């Protein structure tokens, strides 16, 4: 701690000295360096992220995210839990799209056990996965307005998100943290009336997207605060390991749902991967909006031809995963999320590496914040869209 502090102090002193040297050359432009701390408790950081920004007037000279305020030690905790218990934990990594967190872990365990969920379970998994994506990204769209001073979108987002949460609760019993996935299938079948109800809600969600597009994306203030701001070019985005909508907004056509063969139902339906060539804040928001639309389309098509049959494969009562290592990643609402599970044949994993999307997405913050103005910090952070549990785990 002290060594980093002294390092920061040294950097700060050298920065101020450099500024002073410049100022001696040009007295009119003399400004003092200032360090601005955003967070760890700040509404714009979606939780407990701390951004340390060094400013020159209104411009950011140097910025760094300080992570770890939400570190809960998941990777260590999985070592002392059994496989069925781990899903209850990993629900809480990305707390807005909880169901999506379970799926890659379960798929990794199934890969090690060499079993596959029955088709109906795969279908339901995909439906719930997309529902959790909608629940996640619809809140992002609402929150986006708040970051720019518009309060109305967040009310609309919470209103329509409740419908999706009701669906998830009806199917799984959990509003937020379903813990519904089991190795070899699902805990239960869908409840009666779920399919009709879901169709109605998907229609509502499409209306919500249209409303958002008109109200927020068509707003002049919104456009002037996001267009051409926080531009991340294609090559930089790939170098920093961005994934998900952040990468697609920079023009990279990459979506693990399409590019990977997993025992899920995405390749059975017709949908489109949206990209945007600009790479600015607006592009990132726009790609996410289109993703919600695509998700509603995916869910609708999956509901049309959901296969019948059991939702659980034959698995032993006490689950012991054979020795081996497996890596499975999926396209979660925030980007690529993967689990590297090392098994020694015990009841629980020997070691788990969790690759969460936000941690890599946030790594670009020092690069993208360099040279921007202070109010743009907030919009850029909002458009990068991270969740603190997903960063710190």
């Amino acid at each position: 701690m002290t060594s980093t502090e002294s390092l920061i102090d040294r950097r700060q002193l050298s920065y101020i000295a450099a500024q002073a040297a410049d100022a001696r050359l040009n007295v009119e432009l003399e400004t003092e360096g200032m360090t601005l701390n955003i967070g760890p408790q700040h509404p714009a950081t979606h939780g407990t992220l701390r951004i340390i920004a060094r400013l020159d007037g209104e411009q950011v000279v140097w910025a760094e995210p300080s992570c770890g305020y939400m570190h809960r030690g998941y990777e260590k905790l999985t070592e002392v839990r059994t496989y069925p218990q781990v899903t209850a934990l990993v629900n809480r990594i990305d707390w807005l799209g909880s169901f999506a967190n379970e799926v890659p872990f379960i798929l990794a365990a199934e890969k090690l056990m060499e079993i596959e969920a029955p088709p109906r379970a795969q279908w339901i998994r995909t439906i719930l996965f997309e529902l959790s994506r909608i629940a996640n990204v619809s809140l992002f769209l609402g929150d986006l307005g708040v970051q720019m001073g518009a309060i109305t979108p967040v009310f609309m987002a919470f209103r329509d998100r409740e419908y999706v949460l009701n669906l998830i609760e009806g199917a799984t019993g959990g509003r937020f943290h379903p813990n519904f996935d089991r190795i070899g299938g699902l805990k239960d079948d869908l409840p009666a009336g779920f399919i009709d109800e879901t169709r109605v809600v998907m229609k509502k969600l499409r209306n919500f997207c249209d409303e958002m597009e008109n109200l927020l994306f068509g707003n002049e203030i919104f456009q002037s605060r996001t267009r051409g701001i926080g531009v991340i070019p294609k090559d930089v985005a790939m170098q920093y390991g961005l994934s998900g909508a952040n990468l697609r907004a920079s023009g990279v056509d990459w979506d693990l749902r399409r590019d990977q063969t997993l025992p899920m139902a995405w390749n059975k339906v017709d949908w489109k991967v949206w990209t945007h060539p600009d790479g600015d804040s607006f592009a990132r928001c726009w790609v996410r909006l289109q993703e919600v639309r695509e998700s509603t389309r995916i869910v609708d098509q999956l509901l049309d031809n959901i296969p019948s049959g059991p939702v659980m494969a034959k698995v032993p009562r006490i689950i012991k995963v054979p020795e081996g290592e497996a890596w499975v990643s999926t396209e979660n609402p925030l980007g690529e999320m993967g689990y590297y599970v090392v098994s020694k044949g015990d009841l629980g994993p020997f070691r788990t590496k969790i690759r969460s999307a936000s941690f890599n997405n946030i790594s670009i913050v020092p690069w993208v914040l360099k040279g921007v103005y202070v109010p743009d910090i907030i919009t850029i952070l909002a458009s990068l869209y991270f969740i603190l549990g997903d960063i710190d785990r």
Partner: protein
Amino acid sequence: MGLVDRGRLPKPLNSLLNLGRSYSLWVYQWGLACCAIEMGAAFGSPRYDVMRLGVIPLPASPRQADLVVISGTVTDKMAPAVKRLYEQMPEPKYVISMGSCANCGGPYWDSYSVTKGVDQIIPVDVYVPGCPPRPEALLEGVVLLQQRIRNEDMGARWRGEGSKPIIVGETTKSAKSGASKSGAVKGAARVD
């Protein structure tokens, strides 16, 4: 407020003061983890509109707040900041601990980096159990706290004669007896 300090406030004035305090609670939203979203749903969504209860969820800083909702996992790195912001709040101040993590560590009971309960750092008035609790549970916690504030004797509070913390969802019998035992009746009797 010297009268309040010594606990010599006339009874009608005391209940008037309490009525005002209970229906103008400024809540500082300390959103930490998953529970923050449910707190946002309770405080900021049209379905569970909290302002109808006389709660204002939008203070600009903890220095303007009467009530803080600690919602989510408090880690050891975050704990000093929690304490510091609590200390910045003016008296009389109340704390709602929302969710299992803030109550006792929750699913991270054996984690190396999580503080097992925010009550290790700051005193808690209302515990809302759940992982995360539904917004209705948080609203009930707020309502129970308002009931307690209405019956509160300021003198007893200043002297630090705190009553037992409220736990949302306790059986109605014990909650009722707790409510009748605590608060103004007992406190006033002690002052007299």
